[in-house]
């Protein structure tokens, strides 16, 4: 008897839940609005603008970062041709898929690479061809 009494209630709850899910889906009012993750220097695919000389930037792209037992890291990177007069220009050029590659893979110790100002200016997921360079 009790189960029978509860059944409609559960049914109603189920219907309400369905409506809520539908409305949420349609209107996009979900709880997934946490801030989007930002790439950092160690994120595979991140474009890094490194100040090679004062006021001049060079573009690199992180392929993979290997952490060693001594706490240091080795950064496998793509090195791109050219230098850019500002971060904005570097960011704009990083978005160009035809950007010329000077070296498909080079390695740096993190502390050596990051001892000058470096900023993440863009991100693009790595293709298999790009990843093959360090495999």
């Amino acid at each position: 008897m009790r189960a029978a009494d509860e059944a409609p209630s559960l049914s109603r709850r189920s219907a309400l839940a369905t409506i809520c899910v539908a409305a949420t889906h349609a209107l996009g009012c979900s709880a997934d609005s946490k801030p989007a993750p930002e790439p950092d220097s160690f994120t595979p695919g991140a474009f890094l603008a490194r100040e090679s000389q004062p006021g001049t930037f060079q573009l690199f792209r992180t392929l993979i970062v290997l952490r060693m037992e001594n706490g240091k890291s080795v950064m496998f990177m793509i090195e791109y041709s050219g230098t850019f007069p500002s971060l904005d220009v570097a960011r704009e050029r990083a978005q160009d898929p035809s950007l010329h590659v000077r070296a498909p893979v080079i390695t740096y110790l993190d502390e050596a690479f990051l001892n000058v100002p470096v900023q993440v200016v863009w991100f693009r997921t790595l293709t298999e061809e790009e990843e093959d360079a360090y495999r």
Partner: protein
Amino acid sequence: MKSRLGMVLPLITALASTAAAAERVSLGPSVIQLSTFEKKVERGILTPVPIELELPGELQAARVLVHYRIHGSNAWTTLELRRRGSKWDGAIPCLEVSTITGDVRFYVRIHDVRGEVIAFSGSRHDPYRVAIVHDSLRAPDAADGARCPDPSDCPPGLPGCPSEKVEKVPCRSDSDCEGEMSCGWDGFCELDQRRKHWFELSVASGLGVIGANGVCSIPSQEESGYACYRERDGELYKGNPVYRNEALAVGRVPLRIVLGYEHLLHYQNSLGVRAGYAFLGSGPTSPGGTAFVPYSAELRVTHYFAEDPFAELGLTGYAFVSGGYGMYDVKTRIHVRENTERRGAQGGNDLEQRLEVWKRAGDGFAAIGGGARWFLSRGTAVSGELSAVGVFPFSALVLSAELGVRTGF
């Protein structure tokens, strides 16, 4: 009907051409016995033509209608006889007879309470004839009573005055109606000039509204009918988008040509079937996806807001509900941000990029809408309408606009 005809015919009596009869009743029916086989008598000008008949009790008559035609006129007029016990009487008004000489033709039809004709005497092709003769050609003693009165002194329908004209003749089927008349939906004979069968040719298009939140994720593309392509290089997107609460996206749907048939069921309501073919605007089919079916089928019920729209020309508004089978490809563009924390199976996805999104919605739909139809003639109309189409189970809301031409038979 014919078996009862034999009972009715001997009881039909009509007309008077004697002075004695004229003295008996001055304006109302004055009756003499008429031979069953004699269907022609004589009357003077400007006098009413009285008609009286007696029916057997077992004949369940509810209305007795006299259909008459004045000489020189092509139109048949109907008047209803009054009941006086077992007798029914009335008169073709003298103002109708007027001074027109020649034959006045009439016949009688008897209806039951449902409007069905249960007996008749005479017919349109073999009517009773009353010869209207000018006084100068008649015998001096051939008086028919009083001349035509002032209508205001004796309005139709009052006792002793001519019967009222019948505007509507009740019926149950077309066979109960005479001439070109047919039995209308209201149970009365009418000259039906409505076109009940309509064919239409329309062109429809519109905008589709689809959910846009996370629609380019791989699960969404695999299970919800979405396909996303990178604008940069046209590659099918297989990345990891960040959900960013993009609620809705709007895009166009294919142009669709529609052929339809609509049957008028009642004054204001119709039932229609429509078949469509979508072109110019269907999207690509992603690998493993369901191919686009350009054909659509629809069943539609329409209600017109005018009282009798198909009997009149001009503009008429209408509303409809419909449902059926159909696919709607909705094309739109969305902006996605790549989730940098997840390794994707696809390279080359920028941090921020625009994707061309196709939603293949269908295969069922239900719609509600309204429009206006302009009747250019009784058999030609143009129409324009707007509708909201709910597509399921691969959902979309389509706001559709349609223009069409229609021809009726």
